[in-house]
């Protein structure tokens, strides 16, 4: 009998990114592979560091909202509103009710747009190129609404300290209502294309599961946390804007896998539609912002505020020192925690699942790198 020879195998180090079709721009994942199975994963971040927080110390309260939109470009409304709310909290500025309702309305529209973009790119990551076009087509409908109000498609500079910058044009309400009607049908379309697609189910079921305890340990928030069955949503837990006056539900998942995160986002879009409708019905008349001097000065003080963005808890800690610029702005963003969470949940998965799992967390890189 011939002697048994032990075959020596070597692992492979694969640099996924920073320029890779599915790392959403600029994340680099250092993967140690055994065949196709991932033995370890090290995310390398900072390829899009733009000095966002430092810039806040050199721009006035009027200038900076334009920059903070770029902090999280898919949900530009959220960061803009967050910054304005922080300054208002410190200065004790009372925002007129119309501005509050309009902010709520815009945030929810933006949430739908962000989830739609996620849906398209996620399916693209999984290899289906058809749905991207459908999702982007419907996202254009929302962008048109934004354009009607702010004149911009992506980065709006909508919120300002003391209210919002632009009032709704007269046709806005009619257009939003048209959109609501169309979009409900479109969600049903997506569900028939995607949710009942056997190949899609095969790819996402039981993939990327994690326990609620683990998620909490890594401070995961948003849909990735709710998919494990923890009902944590800042809109309900510490209501801001007009969220305590509107009626909506916070759906949660059961298993904490990728399918749950997909289902959650679809359900959230429906809930957002409900909120948008209520906002339209109850939109009060009045001023859209309080009258402030040309040079906005915020008295010394500090505040931390957090909003529930489509990706999770996005927070800002602002220290003001009585001048027209803030002394320090610290941003807390969900994507950072989610990228940090990656090495834990990617362990032992396959290369193909990197996309399925990473995509399902809906990470956006400028938020991580700032």
């Amino acid at each position: 009998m011939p002697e048994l020879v032990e075959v020596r195998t070597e692992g492979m180090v694969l640099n996924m990114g920073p320029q890779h079709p599915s790392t959403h721009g600029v994340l680099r994942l250092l993967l140690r592979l055994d065949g196709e199975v991932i033995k370890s994963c090290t995310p390398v971040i900072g390829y899009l560091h733009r000095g966002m927080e430092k810039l806040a110390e050199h721009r006035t309260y009027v200038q900076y909202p334009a920059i903070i939109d770029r902090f999280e470009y898919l949900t530009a409304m959220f960061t803009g509103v967050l910054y304005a709310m922080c300054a208002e909290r410190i200065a004790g500025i009372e925002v007129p009710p119309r501005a509050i309702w309009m902010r709520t309305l815009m945030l929810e529209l933006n949430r739908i747009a962000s989830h739609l973009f996620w849906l398209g790119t996620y399916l693209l990551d999984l290899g289906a190129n058809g749905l991207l076009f459908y999702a982007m087509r419907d996202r254009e409908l929302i962008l048109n609404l934004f354009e009607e109000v702010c004149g911009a498609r992506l980065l709006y500079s909508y919120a300002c300290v003391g209210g919002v910058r632009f009032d709704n044009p007269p046709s806005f309400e009619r257009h939003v209502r048209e959109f609501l009607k169309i979009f409900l049908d479109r969600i049903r379309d997506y569900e028939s294309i995607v949710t009942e697609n056997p190949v899609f189910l095969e790819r996402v079921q039981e993939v990327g599961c994690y326990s609620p305890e683990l998620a909490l340990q890594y401070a995961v928030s948003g849909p990735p946390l709710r998919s494990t069955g923890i009902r944590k949503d800042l809109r309900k837990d510490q209501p801001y804007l007009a969220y305590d006056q509107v009626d909506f539900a916070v759906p949660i998942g059961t298993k904490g896998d990728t399918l749950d995160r997909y289902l959650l986002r679809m359900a959230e879009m429906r809930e957002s539609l409900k909120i948008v409708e209520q906002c339209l019905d109850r939109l009060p008349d009045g001023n859209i912002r309080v009258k402030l001097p040309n040079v906005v000065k915020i008295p010394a003080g500090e505040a931390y505020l957090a909003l529930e963005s489509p990706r999770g808890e996005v927070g800002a800690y602002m220290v003001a020192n009585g001048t027209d610029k803030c002394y320090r702005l610290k941003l807390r963003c969900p994507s950072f925690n989610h990228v940090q969470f990656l090495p834990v949940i990617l362990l032992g998965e396959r290369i193909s699942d990197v996309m399925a799992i990473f995509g399902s967390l809906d990470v956006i890189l400028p938020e991580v790198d700032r």
Partner: protein
Amino acid sequence: MNLLQSLLNLPEPLMGAIGALLITLGMLPVAAMLVLWERIFLGKLTQRPGPNRVGPRGLLQTIADALKLLTKEDFTPKDADRILFFLAPLIFIVPSFLVFAVVPFGHFGGTHGPVLIADLRTGIFFMVAVFSLHTVGILMAGWASNNKYSLLGGIRGVAQAISYELPLIFSFLGILILSGSMSTVDIIKAQGGGLHNWFFLAQPVAFLVYLACSVAEVNRVPFDIPEAESELVSGFNTEYSGMRFAMFFLAEYVSLFATAAIATIVFLGGWLAPFPEPAVITGSTLGYFFWSAGWFLLKVFTLVTLAMWVRGTLPRLRADQLMDFAWKFLVPVVLVNLFVTGLLALWGRWAVAGGLWLALLLWALYGQSRAAKAERRQVVY
């Protein structure tokens, strides 16, 4: 070629060479048309106009692409294995053309014989054997590029090809029992007389299995893991540029046409019309040539469009799920199919067909009941 051969009276090797030249020259515009059609079709599918600027209605789009790729810098990476790197696209592209040696594109009617280069007695066997040479090209490209993504793509390609060759070949075996011949011409002739004699009715399971496997053979969605754009950048051809990349591109579409042609021959009656052909047409040589070639191309085109439709709809399967699907599902299914066909072959074709349709129906019902049992997951409010 039989008619031409009798007309020209040239020695057989020379006729073969002429045929090969015709196929090669003829397939280039066909592939160009398929690329264009895919773009326009997918465009319409996703509610876009698709290419419409280049030439009249965008018809020259692929010509522009081809010219550009031909004149682009040809690049070999520094640490690549130069010989293999050079050979890989050739080995990848040649089998796709070779398959057409036994493909009858039509018929000259009467006793003039079919339009094909070589009526091999082992036609189907030749097709499958030649077609699987692709894989060598994929592996060579993946290895020679000295790129990790390419290597992964190459290895995936081989694993996939080995898995899907098997059910693909087995799906033909039932047909061989029914037709009693491996020759492509005989298989088509066995399906004569109208739609009810076509083998996709007698062998529904084999037909479906073949469709799945053929998509895997040409590495298209949902089986495109060797390329897997969102995972492996561009898979085994990541490092190829210009002309050599064009060869991979071209080969993909020629193979797509080839697999559809094979399906047409084996399951859809080749050049035959779906009803008994009137004597007026079968009588005229040239008339029957256009008639039969028209039917053939129509069937092939329909199948190709089907593959494009699938591409626009489905996500990609994971590598291990792909293997599971081949080994745990397709292979047992075709084996059972083969067994049943063999048992019932003695009792006539209709018994076979009836049995298989019944089995398919039962299986579909079973799948439905299972799907109903595994209730759809919902979010909790």
